[in-house]
């Protein structure tokens, strides 16, 4: 009760507020007291609006202690005055603390009874289990990531070709610029090419006697036709080497009297292809019997691609030509000028091929794949993929044994590929 106002001061304030005289207010408050007394005595309750309620409460008799002597005193039963402030007054007085709400204490270890929760020195660690578990999980994750990242690198091995012939671009450049020490004898005679035969025209038989002997000399120094457009390999200088290798094995033209297929040597073909079913042989004599294929003598600048484009109007069908001439042509990229090749006929046209045509062409692609595989061309698997894409399993079944497992897997990884059964 630090701050007090005297009664007279209070009266003055009320008088100032209302405008009435001090005497009146003084009397008012005095009378108020007596009226309250009367009310308490008669009714036991007096309520003043804006202030509160005065009331009486009966207290029963109780024992007390004399504080000085310490003796017990009996306090008799009696009335007691109480005052309950009005709600508005209470709220007004407590207006600063009205918004504060009571909080429930959740984990106050001190408050709990010592019997239920004995004092525990490791409680501070238990409260931090979350932190420990998070740290362990983090470590675990890091370890797992490292482990699985290592495995990933070793998952896909790079396929290695068996007979890999590497030629660097520098070597190619060197060979081209190298000056020749001896004069190059120019080929004197080109073999006359037969006129381009239409499908309906009959086939002339190739008379070996008619072929001039100069053809043989020209083979000694053949001019290499450019590679086909389909392949873009850095193997241009390979042609020299390939020709030099096959020179001893090359058959001279007088053998064309007999069927070329019958003189097929066993050295050229690998064993895997021998097992497969017989390839349609380039039967030049059979062509004369009304077969509407044609024989084409290779000219300078010819490629299988351009030949196919002329005969079939679709250059992508060139493997069909290679199929029948696979004994004659060692490398599809390398064509010898003057050599005759047999261009087989198609049952349908380029945009409208029959089933037999498709089978022939697919077989051609497979044979091209095998040839490239033998030579070490890195684009070989794509030819196999083309063959599989058409999804004619009978053709592929014939060559199943010769298809390498590595290529099979390589193809299956390409989008849109078909299973090789």
């Amino acid at each position, binding site marked *: *009760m*630090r*701050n*007090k*106002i005297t*009664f007279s001061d*209070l009266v003055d*304030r*009320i008088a100032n*507020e*209302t405008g*009435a005289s001090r005497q*009146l*207010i003084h009397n*008012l*408050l005095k*009378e*108020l007291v007596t*009226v*309250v*007394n*009367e009310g*308490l*005595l*008669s*009714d*036991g*309750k*007096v*309520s*003043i*609006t*804006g*202030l*509160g309620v005065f009331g*009486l*409460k*009966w*207290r*029963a008799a109780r024992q007390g202690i004399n504080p000085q002597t310490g003796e017990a005193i009996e306090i008799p039963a*009696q*009335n*007691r*005055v109480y*005052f309950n*402030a009005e709600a508005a*007054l*209470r709220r*007004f*007085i*407590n207006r600063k*603390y009205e918004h*504060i*709400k*009571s*909080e*429930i*204490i959740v984990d*106050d270890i001190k*408050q709990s009874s010592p019997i239920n929760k004995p004092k525990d020195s490791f409680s501070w660690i238990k409260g931090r289990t979350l932190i420990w578990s998070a740290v362990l999980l983090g470590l675990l994750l890091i370890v797992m990531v490292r482990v699985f990242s290592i495995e990933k690198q070793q998952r896909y091995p790079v396929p290695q070709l068996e007979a890999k012939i590497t030629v660097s671009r520098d070597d190619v450049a060197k060979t081209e610029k190298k000056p020749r020490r001896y004069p190059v004898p120019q080929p004197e005679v080109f073999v006359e090419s037969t006129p381009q035969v239409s499908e309906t025209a009959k086939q002339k038989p190739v008379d070996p006697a008619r072929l001039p002997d100069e053809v043989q000399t020209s083979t000694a120094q053949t001019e290499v036709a450019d590679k086909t457009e389909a392949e873009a390999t850095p193997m241009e200088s390979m042609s020299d080497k390939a020709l030099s290798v096959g020179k001893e094995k090359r058959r001279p033209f007088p053998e064309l009297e007999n069927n070329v297929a019958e003189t097929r040597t066993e050295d050229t073909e690998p064993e895997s292809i021998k097992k497969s079913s017989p390839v349609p042989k380039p039967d030049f004599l059979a062509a004369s019997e009304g077969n509407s294929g044609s024989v084409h003598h290779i000219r300078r600048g010819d490629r299988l691609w351009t030949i196919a484009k002329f005969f079939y109007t679709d250059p992508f069908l060139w493997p069909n030509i290679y199929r029948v001439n696979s004994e004659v042509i060692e490398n599809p990229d390398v064509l010898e000028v003057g050599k005759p090749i047999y261009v087989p006929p198609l049952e349908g046209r380029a945009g409208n091929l029959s089933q037999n045509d498709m089978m022939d062409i697919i077989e051609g692609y497979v044979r091209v794949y095998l040839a490239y595989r033998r030579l070490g061309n890195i684009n070989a698997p794509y030819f196999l993929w083309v063959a599989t894409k058409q999804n004619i399993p009978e053709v592929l079944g014939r060559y199943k044994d010769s298809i390498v497992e590595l290529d099979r897997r390589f193809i299956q990884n390409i989008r849109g590929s078909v299973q090789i059964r």
Partner: protein
Amino acid sequence: MTGSELIKRLAERLGRPQREIRGLLKSSTGIFKKTLGVDFSFTIPKLGTFGTHMRHKRKAYNPHYKKFVVLPSKRVVFFHPSSVLKDRIKDIKGGNEE
């Protein structure tokens, strides 16, 4: 005794119209409220002392829910009756029994 009856009696004793007494009483209670609002206490002689107490923040226990609660601090109004008043009502046996 209700407030209107109080005013009637006051008007009777003072010889003033009731509406005047009503107004005066209202403004006087207003003054009381204001003084209490700024934590000033005042005494009306032979009645008692009106004032405010501060109940500070404290921990309490709810035995039903068996939980401890922090009760916020608050300010309350008190009335200490004067000894005259206490003596006067002491011996009345017709009062409210507990």
